[in-house]
């Protein structure tokens, strides 16, 4: 199995557009934040040329710039720091061997991360440890964002019986306490793998949805479903820390 993704998806042609209605004009965007599409790849042709020519300084610069994020990502998916370092090392070896086939349709960072994802997935299968996958964090399709018993009314169309607490009045030091952060870290680690990749790249690494789709090989629609389940599970867990019903 080839680890190096080739050909890359063309970021100029986002998948899954056909099933969506045309986006509303900008002045219709009242509440929701309109996210941009895939980030156009920056002009890295000079850097990529230097890597292809065997310029060690360029290579060291790229390793130095990407290593922290790559280690952090790998560390979320494999059982130990040692394995995470192995994954990152193997990623760089694959980058060295594959840079000639990199077509620069995505950014170098997206391409390198895609390689990391493939290697971490392969390792994850090999070294699968027993992850306690509670029903709360299951990948089941019927997983509701909020437990149905919090609502009254017809199934799926209920009104709040136990409405959400007012976190908006909590002071920052409570919201961002180390206990809260630990809970989020633990919950992210327990998310099903696909949700975890999407949450890590979107909400921790702050990637655009287009870049996440390109790196993980997902359609926009699938990416949103995974993001929704992951974020909803995190919100539900945070109720234990920040307050459940008001």
């Amino acid at each position, binding site marked *: 199995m080839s680890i190096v993704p080739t050909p890359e998806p063309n970021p100029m042609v986002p998948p899954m557009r056909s099933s*969506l*209605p045309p*986006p*509303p004009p900008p002045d*219709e*965007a*009242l*509440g*929701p*934040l*309109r*996210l941009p599409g895939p980030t156009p790849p920056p002009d890295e042709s000079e850097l990529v040329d230097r890597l292809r*020519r*065997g310029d*060690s300084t360029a*290579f060291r610069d790229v*390793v*130095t710039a990407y*290593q*922290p994020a790559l*280690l*952090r990502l790998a*560390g*979320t998916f494999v059982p130990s*720091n040692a394995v995470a370092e192995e994954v990152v*090392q193997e990623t*760089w*070896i694959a980058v*060295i061997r594959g840079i000639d086939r990199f077509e620069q349709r995505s950014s170098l960072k997206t391409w390198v991360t895609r390689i990391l994802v493939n290697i971490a997935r392969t390792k994850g299968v090999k070294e699968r440890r027993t992850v306690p996958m509670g029903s709360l964090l299951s990948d089941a399709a019927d997983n*509701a964002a*909020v437990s149905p018993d919090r*609502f009254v*009314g017809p199934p*799926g*169309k209920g*009104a*709040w019986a136990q*409405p*959400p607490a*007012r*976190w*908006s009045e909590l002071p920052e030091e409570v*919201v*961002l306490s180390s206990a809260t*952060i630990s809970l*989020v*870290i633990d919950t*992210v680690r327990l998310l099903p793998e696909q949700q975890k990749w999407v949450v890590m790249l979107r*909400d*921790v690494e702050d990637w655009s949805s287009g870049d996440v789709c390109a790196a993980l090989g997902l359609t926009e629609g699938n990416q*949103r479903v995974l*993001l*929704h389940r992951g*974020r*909803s599970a*995190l*919100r539900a867990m*945070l109720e234990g820390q*920040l307050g459940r019903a*008001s």
Partner: protein
Amino acid sequence: MRLLSRQNIVCQQWTELITDYLEGALPRGLVRAIDRHLAACPHCTEYLAQMRRTIAITGHIDGQIKGEPPPAPVPADMMDALQRAFDDFHHSPDA
């Protein structure tokens, strides 16, 4: 279309539509229905605030994902090993 533009949503539906709403992936009529519901429902407005806070808190786990200090710079021995691999690849006869 007139009927669609008057469509209503209820609280439980909102909790499943919220991500598509935040991602800007919903049709205009549904966005209007949601905005009308939010204007009338403080609980769903709070749910939106909770979700935004959840996203913000998740952004703060950066660098602390394993409960350890942020990763140090690339260790010299690892960097040297990688650079050797890079140089070998480019200087080997069949490169």
